[in-house]
């Protein structure tokens, strides 16, 4: 995946295999247990890592990171408020979202530990080779004679069938040269679009993106809009379609979006200072 620091802020990314893995790594880096405090502690870092990912996103990955980032931001915001008793539906929904996140995180953690066990077995197995040699000639000669009635044409057809890709080929975006994009600009696009549509899926919102970097920019822009309380997210199932709902009202909305590192505009310089 991504390594090292990108300009603007310094983060050291180890390999992580998904949003839960990243969360767990961040939590363990702080030597914390999986608690609400831990989640709150790592929220900013989680989002920083997402920013640093830059290239290398695909839409499916992005939506899950986005949902988790949104939940984390919610939880962090709630902690900043004076502790209140659970009285309205919003609090309840937040608690549910938190429990679901904990549950999925712990479930993932269990499988990660199981994977470590399997890795150990695999390592031990790699030092063991099975007997696998050709049959001694006199046994091979005793095999019943092979009946092979296939025609060359059918063999050719079988070859074509075997060589026809079974899944839709994925288009690599690696070769696309890097374009500089502005998160602020994309936030503006999304604001206008969402105000008109009220509700749209993440996929729809990114339908006109020319490259991965633009998807990432839209993704970060959504986080910014979310942070401003202008939108909310709905996702029926994990990795399912992510729906974005406008909650900023009908009036004109001024965006306070800081630019990120690597933005073409001169505003990029102060990107790392934002909180």
């Amino acid at each position, binding site marked *: 995946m991504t390594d090292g620091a990108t300009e603007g802020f310094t983060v050291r990314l180890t390999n992580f295999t998904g949003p839960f893995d990243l969360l767990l790594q961040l939590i363990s880096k702080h030597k914390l247990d999986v608690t609400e405090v831990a989640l709150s502690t790592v929220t900013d870092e989680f989002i920083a890592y997402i920013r640093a990912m830059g290239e290398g996103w695909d839409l499916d990955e992005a939506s899950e990171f986005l949902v988790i980032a949104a939940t984390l931001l919610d939880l962090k915001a709630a902690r900043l408020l004076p502790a209140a008793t659970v009285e309205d539906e919003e609090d309840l929904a937040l608690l549910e979202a938190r429990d679901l996140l904990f549950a999925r995180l712990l479930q993932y953690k269990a*499988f990660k530990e199981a994977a470590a066990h399997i890795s150990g077995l695999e390592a031990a197995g*790699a030092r063991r080779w099975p007997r696998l040699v050709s049959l001694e000639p006199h046994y091979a000669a005793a095999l019943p004679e092979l009946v092979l009635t296939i025609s060359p044409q059918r063999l050719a057809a079988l070859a074509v069938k075997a060589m026809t890709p079974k899944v839709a080929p994925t288009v690599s975006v690696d070769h696309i040269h890097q374009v500089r994009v502005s998160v602020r600009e994309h936030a503006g696009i999304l604001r206008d679009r969402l105000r008109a549509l009220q509700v749209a899926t993440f996929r729809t919102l990114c339908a006109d993106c020319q490259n991965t970097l633009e998807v990432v920019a839209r993704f970060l822009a959504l986080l910014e809009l979310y942070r401003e309380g202008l939108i909310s997210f709905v996702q029926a199932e994990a*990795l399912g379609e992510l729906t974005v709902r406008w909650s900023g009202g009908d009036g004109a909305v001024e965006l306070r979006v800081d630019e990120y590192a690597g933005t073409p505009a001169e505003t990029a310089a102060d990107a790392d200072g934002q909180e």
Partner: protein
Amino acid sequence: MDEHRSLADELAGWAPPPGRPRPETDQVAQAQPAVEVVPAVEPESAAVAEPSAAVAEPVGPLDDAELTAALESILLVVDEPVADDKLAEVLDEPLERVVFALVELSARYTAAGSGIDLRRAAGGWRLYTRPEYADYVQRFVLDGQQSRLTQAALEALAVVAYKQPVTRSRISAIRGVNCDGVTRTLVTRGLIEECGSEPDSGAYLYRTTPLFLEKLGLDSVDQLPQLAPFLPDNVEEIADA
């Protein structure tokens, strides 16, 4: 690992007969020199003939030493773990006797520090090199070594191992990332396979293969540690909600 230890337990107090005389075996050897000759004078006739007809009937029941030796010979030609009941059938011996002979043979190899290791894997028996000598063996195994699995592939494999049969979307949901690519890799490597589809969604279901068990040195997936201790009780319900 565990079954290895239990194997040893089973055999505790059992004394292998390292050097007992076996006149019968030698007699048999002298009586059947023709078998040594590589045939192939008329390979067609042998090939066309009914399999069973080509095979001479064995001469009476096997004594313990002969049974063990016959098992060793057969194990030398198997190219995948072979079930004990298949061995019993081919040798026309009671299953318990064959199993006992296999367990004893495995323990004898281990006790003698042999470079050959007879192991139970994926529901069968097969000869393996002993890990202590991997460094030497490696230089003779010319066939390209398969690269080790990535962390992502291991995680997906763990989900399949514990949740099988399971759909790709369920694997993805647990890992929080799309798993289509790693699932494909695991299928190509022969570690998991499709096994029908989910009635409601029509999505393919996946399970682990015997090769998975063999590569991991497991007899069955039941030997994997329980997942439960890692998990709070209600996680499944919450996550599925």
